[in-house]
């Protein structure tokens, strides 16, 4: 890892960061978004059952 070029290391870190954000959104925010969407579809302006 220490022999990596700084740019490669930065890009690797960037990918790890994006992956962590994606996992975080999936675990934390996605269920909330799903609930909101369900609520919006069934009881919101769309009024679907």
């Amino acid at each position, binding site marked *: 890892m220490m022999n990596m070029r700084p740019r490669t*290391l930065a890009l690797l870190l960037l990918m790890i*960061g994006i992956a*962590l954000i994606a996992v975080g959104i999936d675990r934390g925010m996605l269920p909330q978004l799903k609930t909101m969407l369900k609520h919006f579809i069934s009881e919101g302006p769309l009024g679907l059952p």
Partner: protein
Amino acid sequence: MPSKKFTLFKIVRTTVQFIAFIILNACILGVCERITIPLPILYPSTVPTTMFLGGFDVIQYRISHAIFPFIALGIFIVVAATVGRAFCGWVCPFGFLQDLMSYIGYKKVTVSKGAHNFLKQIKYMVLFLTILMVGIVGVLTAQDRGKEFIDALGYYAYQPFTPFSPSETFFTVIPKIVSYITSNPSQLRVLLDPMLLMDLIEVQEPILVFRIVFLGILLTLMFFIPRFWCRYLCPMGALMATLGSEYSLLTIKRNIVRCIECEACSKVCPMQIPVLKVLKEKGKLMDSECIKCMDCMFICPENALSITVME
């Protein structure tokens, strides 16, 4: 005497920091919807007007509640990999306060190399102790054990660093005390009795005297040593440095033909980085202490330093 270019740049950076401060406190402008995005800055989430979350508060809170801080850590790594510690230099309100203090400072003091190298390790110790503390509380919480221990820690169990944070003292506690005193005109009589005043406030804010004395010492030091807190004590900066801000895509490079090795860049650096030495050794300004303030670039009389991205 700094050049016109450097003075102009300082005005631009101060303006950006001021605008960032207003955006962070958008509630002042009437936008009170809180965006739960943690930013890599030392700004307490307890400020009533804040719109974003202070990153270190989020990290402490989530780990101590046995929740892995995926999003916060992800954001910090992305920021560290792209712009390094630029949030310290351009957004952090406590950094802004330190810059303002150093502008009106009487005389700058250069810390000796040995002392500087020793002192800058303290922030990593602060970070380690905080993470260790919240880690222990987090493990106990996850296993549903040690309730007595957590109760005994009380105020310090879930956010052990926050009570010591001068940023919280300056932006939350002091305004709270001022608001408390001014909103109760009947309480104004307590101003005449310091002991009574202390008793009243101590109930609301434990270790208040320590906090105010600590803030006072830091504010005094900031007059003489630019970015004293960021250099030696800030755990948020230490976390960003640990997450790889040294390898950020945005950095500064040197044109060796233009450079006259006058050391102006090293002398102006608020983090006391030997800029020229690092540039000579690594070709780019790769240093985990760099807050990307760009002072070195604009002080250069030969325009030998320039920004580089992904090079």
